[in-house]
């Protein structure tokens, strides 16, 4: 259901030297330019999920926009909350516990084309797969503190990627907590790979899956996206060197912070930028930064757009929330923490 990307591409001017005008080389030299959200998105109608006194929406998890429903893994109550597209809570599923159908700090949820629902039951070290009626179909063991769940929607080669990272030691990228694990839909682990030694998957890494099922990984405080192929080998490194990134270069850590204590202090005390999300859609890589303690007038969330080969195309796009994507396409999520909490979803139909 993703919209055509032709408009996005058409909006990207190219630069050509006089000598190579009209050649292939010319066409491959795009000029990056500053952009606004209207350059990339036709914003859709907002969906607002509202918490209640019994089910406050205080978790920072991202809701999953399904064609029929909106799913939200509530980490605090250990329940799966189900909303309709009007934002009404229509069902809660599960409770705290360890049995199938019970959850412990479910961290994220996704669904696939068949309507199956995949819950990253992180506290129990597993993925629970639910049918359309939200009954448990299977439980897939995924030991460790898996922070990210990616479910591909390729019906021919379905796969589930779990990314463990919270306790990944800086000194050992091959440690169990650092591994990227890939499962098929039957729950069989088909691959587990470690990232490069110089690129351990550190706390709160961001991940996305490309059209060829490459895994795009970036450390939250890093300045690069590392692309790993299906075989677990790193294919390339995309350096994030946009004007919007450089604006915060003085307070942004290198990809492998030498002194994480200093970095953490900066996180608290200083204005800085961290990578907030990665999304691959329409053969583009969307890298979103979150500016913590932005200066007056600056947007908190800034989006840059790269081609998948790593060329910067658009940058400095102020967005109305955190960019994420489901099978319905990209959308922005904004959390509101006052009262019982609320979460707004704003679909981004790519131009």
């Amino acid at each position, binding site marked *: 259901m993703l919209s055509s990307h032709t408009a996005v591409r058409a909006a990207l001017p190219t630069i050509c030297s006089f000598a190579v005008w009209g050649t292939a080389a010319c066409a491959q030299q795009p000029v990056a330019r500053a952009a606004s959200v209207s350059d990339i998105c036709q914003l859709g109608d907002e969906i607002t999920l509202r918490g209640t006194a019994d089910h406050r929406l205080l978790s920072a998890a991202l809701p999953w926009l399904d064609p029929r429903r909106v799913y939200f893994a509530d980490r605090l109550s250990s329940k799966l909350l189900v909303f309709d597209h009007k934002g009404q809570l229509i069902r809660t599923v599960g409770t705290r516990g360890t049995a199938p159908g019970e959850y412990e700090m479910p961290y994220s949820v996704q669904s696939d084309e068949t309507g199956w629902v995949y819950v990253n039951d992180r506290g129990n070290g597993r993925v629970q797969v639910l049918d359309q009626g939200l009954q448990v179909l299977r439980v897939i063991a995924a030991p460790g*503190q898996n*922070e990210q769940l990616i479910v591909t929607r390729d019906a021919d080669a379905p796969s589930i990627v779990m990314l463990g990272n919270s306790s990944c030691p800086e000194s050992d990228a091959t440690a169990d907590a650092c591994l990227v694990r890939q499962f098929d839909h039957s729950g069989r682990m088909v691959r587990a790979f470690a990232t490069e030694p110089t690129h351990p998957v550190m706390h709160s890494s961001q991940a996305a899956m490309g059209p060829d099922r490459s895994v795009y990984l970036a450390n939250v405080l890093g300045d690069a996206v590392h692309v790993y192929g299906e075989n677990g080998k790193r294919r390339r490194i995309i350096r994030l060197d946009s004007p919007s990134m450089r604006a915060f270069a003085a307070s942004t850590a290198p990809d492998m912070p030498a002194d994480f204590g200093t970095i953490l*202090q900066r996180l608290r005390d200083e204005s800085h930028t961290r990578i907030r999300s990665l999304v691959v859609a329409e053969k583009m890589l969307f890298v979103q930064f979150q500016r913590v303690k932005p200066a007056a007038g600056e947007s908190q969330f800034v989006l840059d757009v790269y081609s998948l080969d790593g060329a910067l195309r658009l940058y400095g796009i102020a967005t109305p929330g955190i960019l994420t994507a489901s099978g319905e396409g990209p959308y922005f999520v904004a959390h509101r923490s006052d009262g019982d909490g609320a979460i707004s979803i704003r679909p981004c139909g790519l131009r």
Partner: protein
Amino acid sequence: MTWTANKVLGTAAAAVVILVGGYAFQARTAAEVARAMPAIDRAGVPTRHVRLAAGRLPYLYSGIAFADRSQPGETKVESAPAQIMIFFTETDCFTGLADLPFWSELHDALGQRATVVGVTTGSDTARVAYYLKERDVRIPVLYDRDRILFSILDTLRQPITPMLIVADADGAVLRAFGSVGGQRSQQDAIRKALNAVLAEQESRLHSSLR
């Protein structure tokens, strides 16, 4: 966040000793400030009295004193040999959530030997109450709206919560522990260290009574 805490505490410890050695915590001890602070329980109703006692936690900032030693008479907190304060915010960070049952275990296990209290901040006590209820946290919690106690973390240059601080009866910080993300082996290490610190404090208390 275990590796993170370890990294931070490991790399920064030496610097912290230099930075904060001899620091007087706003001319009052943490215990004294805490005693005067409004408390909230898990139902969000203020409780008038939270008894501060002692607890011990592992290693990393051992021996850093924040008490104003020039006025020791002001710093006694009942007869407890030590006190444990767990600084937290109501975030849904996995490692923080995973630590919550451990806090209640400490509270139950230490009994009269130490009082375990949580310290939180923020503007919405109802949120905190909801958080504690949903996660079945059973420890008393101090509401540090003005971040008076939280300034300890600033002084430690320790931005991570949850953070468990052990202080003696005079309010001197004995130990500080970062989140262990629910990992049993590290919880056991903390228990062991706590027992050692408590035994030491109790021994001192008995000596002073002879």
